[in-house]
Structures are given as structure tokens and as C-alpha cells.
């Protein structure tokens, strides 16, 4: 490119369009974090389903895996930030959205545990007096709260990035949230696994594929 080359008006407009497209192509995020979270949530839900279905109990809560996953998440985020040569306008917004989501999830875990613990003695007393368990069981509804939250950052990120697989994934979380109110716990767990695959795992795979493609194209330009 010549520094002082004068352009015709048409050439100028073409150059502007070409450069804007090049900048857009460079703003691909890796999909690794989305793939990881999609797999972990689906795995945890299916293991919990297996525990209920086959009457066994692991010596630890399988959802503790989500706490462990924070370590690779931090590593991936730091690595991605360090490697990024360009910052898009929406990057910061999406980062804080997911950080807020993470905080809400851990608050929700705390709240549901507190409600469950508070309700348990009343439920046991009811069973003792009535001779059968109470028809209301709080855990029957907890999946809906989580799916409600899963949908929000997924949908907003999808809209913000103009990335349809995430928009559909977010909407599926909300449909599952509604369905989980009326379905038994086993179905709730299946819905959670399904939602995490469609909201994160599949969009993550598509993002990673696009990122690798853009990386290859960039490398090919500099052979």
C-alpha cells in the first residue's frame, strides 16, 4: 500500500469497505470457553440424572466440577486477552455480562441451598403427620431458576455479536425454563443438558471453527 497514493472517490469508498470488512473478520473470539461450559453443565446434569435413575450417589457433589472449571476459564480468558491484537467495541460489555452471570449463578446456588435447608424440616414434619411426602418439593423447581439465568447472557451475547446460534440457544434455555416448571426432576436435568449443548457447546464449536478459519486465512496472506 502506498502511503501518499491519491485515490479516486470510488477507490476510496472501496478501500473503506474493504478495511471495515477486514477489521470485522479479525474480531473472532475462540469458542473454547463456550465449548467447555457446554460440556461441563451437560455432563453434570447427566451424571446427576444417572444418580437418580440408578440409585447411586457419588461421594461428592458433581456440580463442584463447575467450581474447578473456573481455573481453566481464567486461563483461557487471560490467554485470549493477551493474544488479541484488536479490541472490538462490544468486548468489554460481553466480558462484564458473563462475569455478572457467574456471580448470579453462585448467588442462586446459595439461595436454593438456603431455601432447601429451610424447607426440609417442614417437609419431614409433614411426611410424619400425613404419612406421605408433601406434594410441593422445592428441588422440582430449581432447574427453572438456573435455566432462566442461562438464557439471559446467552441471548444478549448472541444479539450483541449478531450470532444466531447463541440467540436460538438463549431462547431454548427460556423454553426449557418454562417446561421445567411442569416436568419431573429427571426431565429437568435432561432439559438442562440439552439447553447447555445448544446454548454453549454448539455455538462454541461454530465460533472456534470460524476463529481457526480466520487464523488460517491470515496466515496464508503472509506466506
Amino acid at each position, binding site marked *: *500500500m*502506498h502511503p501518499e*497514493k491519491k*485515490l479516486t*472517490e470510488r477507490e476510496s469508498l472501496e478501500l*473503506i469497505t474493504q478495511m471495515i470488512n477486514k477489521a470485522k473478520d479479525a474480531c473472532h473470539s475462540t469458542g473454547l470457553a463456550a465449548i467447555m461450559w457446554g460440556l461441563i453443565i451437560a455432563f453434570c446434569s447427566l451424571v446427576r440424572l444417572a444418580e437418580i435413575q440408578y440409585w447411586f450417589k457419588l461421594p461428592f457433589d458433581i456440580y463442584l466440577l463447575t467450581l474447578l472449571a473456573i481455573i481453566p476459564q481464567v486461563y483461557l480468558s487471560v490467554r485470549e486477552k493477551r493474544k488479541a491484537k*484488536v*479490541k472490538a467495541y462490544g468486548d468489554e460489555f460481553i466480558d462484564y455480562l458473563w462475569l455478572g452471570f457467574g456471580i448470579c449463578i453462585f448467588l442462586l446456588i446459595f439461595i436454593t441451598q438456603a431455601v432447601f435447608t429451610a424447607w426440609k424440616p417442614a417437609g419431614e414434619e409433614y411426611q410424619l403427620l400425613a404419612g406421605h411426602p408433601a406434594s410441593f418439593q422445592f428441588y422440582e423447581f430449581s432447574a427453572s431458576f438456573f435455566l432462566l439465568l442461562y438464557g439471559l447472557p446467552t441471548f444478549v451475547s448472541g444479539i450483541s455479536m449478531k450470532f444466531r446460534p447463541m440467540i436460538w440457544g438463549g431462547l431454548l434455555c427460556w423454553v426449557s425454563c418454562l417446561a421445567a416448571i411442569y416436568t419431573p426432576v429427571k426431565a429437568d436435568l435432561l432439559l438442562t443438558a440439552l439447553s447447555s449443548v445448544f446454548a454453549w457447546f454448539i455455538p462454541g464449536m461454530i465460533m472456534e471453527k470460524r476463529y481457526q478459519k480466520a487464523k488460517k486465512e491470515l496466515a496464508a496472506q503472509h506466506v
Partner: protein
Amino acid sequence: MFKDLDPILHSQLRLAVMSLLISVKEAEFTFIKEKTNATAGNLSVQIQKLKEAGYIDVVKQFRDNYPQTTCRITRQGIRAFDDYVQNLQSYLGKQG
């Protein structure tokens, strides 16, 4: 009446740099160099001109012991770019 096209922007490399920076929040020098296929020397001179015109901010720092230059467009740069595109469109509209 047509306004004269901004001479700072009406050159191939400077326009390419501004078009890249208008689309992103900030970009490293190496990124701009890759996308424009310019040499480091040429690009440095043109970036300096854009900086002197007040169209971009340039931050030089060290990261992992390597120098890193980051550029971002200023409000004045956005206005100038916007005017430039509008003038181009009116020229082309008149010709077409």
C-alpha cells in the same frame, strides 16, 4: 457545492488505517500492519501524521518486555472520517 476532501484522509494508507480503526475500539500496530500490508516504516510515518492531526491516539507501552503500540480513533477522527465519507458519497452521487 462540494467541500474539498480532507487531504489527511485522502491518501491510501492513512485512509486504510482510519477505516480499520473506525470499526474497532483499539488495535495494535502489528494488526494494522498486517491488514494494510504496509511496511513498518511507512506505517509509522502515516500514523504519526494522523496523530498530529488529532485523528488518532497512540499509546506506547511494554508488554512482556516487548514494545507494544496501540492506536485508537479520537472523537475528532470520527467526525473527520464521517465528513470525508459524506463528501465522497455526494461526489459519487453527483457523478452517478
